[in-house]
């Protein structure tokens, strides 16, 4: 909602400043949106299917207790696969934390969720090519793992 208001305000300001530029910008933006729409639909269908197939309590059960390094790896994998907005992911992280899931596991999940995108790969490939998309996602996965390790170090979770 706020986003819509911000956008409308920007359009009005831009229009007041320069009609031609604004129209060109609107046209360009809409064209770009239509170009990306097919890849977007594929991503949405895959994400919905994946979320529907995984039972909800399986996620929290497999992330707490047991081997925390394995759980962190699961977090990395889940975060790389999932597509969800921050206003869902962080409340979820808070819930998991309350259930005793270590910070390093939560960080592995939220960090890879934001940085790595397997389902958005087709879109990234379309913009920058396969090689770049592959390298950037791999590097981001490594960074997420290092962030998780740093969390484990700072919060004293590395040793059981």
């Amino acid at each position, binding site marked *: 909602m706020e986003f819509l208001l911000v956008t409308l305000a920007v359009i009005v300001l831009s229009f007041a400043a320069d009609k031609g530029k604004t129209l060109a910008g609107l046209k360009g933006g809409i064209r770009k949106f239509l170009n990306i729409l097919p890849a977007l639909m594929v991503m*949405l269908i895959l994400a919905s299917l994946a979320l529907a197939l995984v039972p909800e309590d399986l996620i929290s059960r497999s992330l707490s207790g047991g081997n925390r390094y394995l759980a962190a790896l699961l977090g990395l994998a889940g975060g790389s696969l999932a597509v969800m907005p921050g206003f869902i992911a962080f409340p979820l992280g808070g819930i998991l934390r309350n259930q005793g899931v270590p910070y390093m596991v939560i960080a592995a999940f939220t960090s890879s969720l934001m940085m790595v995108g397997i389902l958005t790969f087709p879109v*990234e490939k379309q*913009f920058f090519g396969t090689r770049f998309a592959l390298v950037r996602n791999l590097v981001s996965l490594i960074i997420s793992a290092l962030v998780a390790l740093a969390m484990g170090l700072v919060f004293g979770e590395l040793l059981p």
Partner: protein
Amino acid sequence: MKTGRLLAKNLGEMAAILPCAFILIGLFEAWVKRETVEKHLGEGAGWKSYLWVILLGGITLGPMLVALPVASALWKKGAALSVVTAYLGASAVCRIPMTIFEASYLGVPFTLVRYATAIPLVLLSSVGVGRALRDRMLPP
């Protein structure tokens, strides 16, 4: 059945955000002169260009799907590949609305540790990725 319901919900969310995001991107492209971005973000623009993209990443709204077209626009406007890569990283690491959510649910120390680890790693790796792939990319 459940898939359909989730799909409808996800579609609704995307329908509310993405058209706005793309309109903002379109306006950004219409207003921001290539020369300005080149000066701040081009090859040989120096370390200050990384400050610019961290700032830009911080104010990016929405998920990676929104950052990708912005990054593509930057690249087409003449920004260096390493800087474009740094922008993608920064938009994933230090988006302001996301950070606010994170700090309120997981605590400020969590956010500080993540920033202190991820930002230097993003900057270092972006320089590496940019140098390695610069000459092997298709023209934008």
